[in-house]
């Protein structure tokens, strides 16, 4: 959640900057003050000063490219974060050992974290709805810890990771079926970007 907000802030900050830059530069290229229409639709007035129009067109292209680049970067980070956040690691009932599948997934997460050094993560441990609230807190904590230990062994600085247990309080899937239970016995990630 938090990281989405942050991304949104970054994105909107970038957009503001672009707008501001555009405003600052337009008077220089076209002091006669017909800025907005010229920039947005330069072809609308073919008989106007062609040099200025060409400059405006190039500038618009540059801005668009820059916007696209930032957008691509934002999308890439968002995709990475979404990928990490969707990499839920599943466990067997009342167990906290990592399965082979879990280890494969965690290795991918480890790779991402090595590449994106600004990412810090919170590992959340969860249980299914069966059992007591109290014991499930300890079980969720053990699961989160097993994930953290794996990632430390993979080479991620322990300082970049926090672990917390939600016990059975935050199920991903509601219901009292084995299908729901197996989806809820998990550890998942929250990602923050260190500024």
């Amino acid at each position: 959640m938090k990281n989405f907000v942050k991304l949104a802030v970054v994105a909107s900050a970038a957009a503001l900057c672009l707008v501001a830059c555009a405003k600052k530069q337009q008077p220089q290229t076209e002091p006669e003050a017909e800025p907005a229409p010229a920039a947005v639709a330069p072809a609308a007035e073919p008989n106007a000063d062609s040099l200025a129009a060409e400059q405006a067109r190039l500038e618009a292209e540059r801005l668009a490219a820059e916007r696209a680049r930032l957008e691509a970067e934002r999308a890439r980070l968002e995709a990475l974060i979404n990928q990490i956040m969707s990499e839920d690691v599943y466990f067997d009932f009342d167990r906290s050992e990592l399965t082979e599948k879990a280890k494969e997934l965690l290795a991918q997460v480890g790779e991402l974290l090595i590449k994106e050094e600004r990412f810090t993560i919170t590992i959340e441990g969860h249980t299914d709805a069966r059992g007591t609230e109290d014991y499930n807190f300890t079980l969720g904590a053990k699961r989160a810890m097993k994930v953290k230990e794996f990632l430390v062994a993979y080479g991620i600085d322990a300082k970049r990771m926090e672990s917390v247990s939600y016990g059975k309080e935050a199920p991903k899937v509601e219901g009292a079926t084995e299908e729901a239970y197996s989806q809820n016995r998990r550890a998942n990630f929250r990602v923050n970007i260190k500024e």
Partner: protein
Amino acid sequence: MDKMKFFVRVAALALALLPAASYATIDTIAVDVGISVFKTMPIGVVPFAEKKSIDWIEEKPHLIVTRDANLSGRFDVVSSDKFDLPLFSKTHAKHYITGKVTPVGKMLKVECFLYASQTKDLMLGESYLVEQKDMRRALHQFFDQVIYRLWGERGVASTRLAYVSKMDGIKQVVVSDYDGFHRSQITRDTTISMMPVWMKGNAGLYYVNFKTHRPKLYSKTFGGTERAVFPQLDQTYSPAVNPKTGELLFSSTVDGKTDLYIGNPETGKAKKFAYLKSNQTSPAWSPFASEVLFTSDRGGGPQIFAMGKDGSDLRRVTFMGRYNERAAWSPEGDRIAYTSMDGGHMNIYTCALDGSDIVQLTSNAGNNEHPTWSPDGKLIAFSSNRSGSYQIYIMRKDGSNVTRITNSGENTSPTWSFFYDDFKQPKKEGKK
């Protein structure tokens, strides 16, 4: 005032009628030494006389008394429209309760009487001047006096329950009277609140909240403000209040390892309670706070262990099955109630202190969890989803007489209050 005079009169009556008093005493002893835990005393209940026509919004008083009698686990109610000696005699109802209600302005004067059936001697009388909405509580007070008169013990009709109720999808802590009435919401957070337990003296609650995205203990006195307790410790939960000192025993999870800590919630000082390799949670105090029960995962799954308050004499209590959790030590000191999972369902059991003599209290009725003893040790409250949604139930300590006390939404994790220390023995001025 009027009421005082009334009591003087009752006291005089009691003195004048010694035979009646000794009659009651013998009865009390006969019941008290009963071996069976569910030995009950028949008691007659007769509708209260109404001096003017009354517009009843609440249940009528004899129905409230009847519910108290049934919930108490101590009585079998013999209902009758009027005093009926043959009926009371046949059913061995040696006492009966009735009363009189008189409107006084906007208030009701509720006079409550306990009579001996054979002699019609007045054994106990109370008078309350209350608004109709407060009549239920007045009758609870009276009923606890009846229990004291007939059993020589304190009843629980004036005690309360704290539990967790889901509101708009978020778990909040609420309290109600022990019978589910007079419910009030204690937490109003946008994040989960859970695991309420009573402060010593019932002045407020400790509970867990997730506002910092981690489970953390908070305290709140009734009508007061919320305060974080032991903020220096990470992920604190599973609180248990020492019934003698008010200290808090609880779990804290640091780097995936869960240990028991003990601390003073007033000063905020806390230290590790036991240095064990296993994870420990769900602590519970013995009635005199000399020993504790807790759950450890050292065998893999959760099992119940006991040890002295000083960390001595660690021993395993439960051996049957793979999942035994959340022990609660009975106020009488002789039994442990706990939750066990088998076949994917949770059920409530009791056992002796050494783990022997296991009795299953619930079965074939969904999940049954989180047993909490009434302070008189006669009853166990718990939560069950037997009706489809989780609700709070009360049963006798032998598993009989299961009564649902909440009706809507989703209610879990009941914790019974302590006795209220302002309980006075029969010669008492009632609340106005």
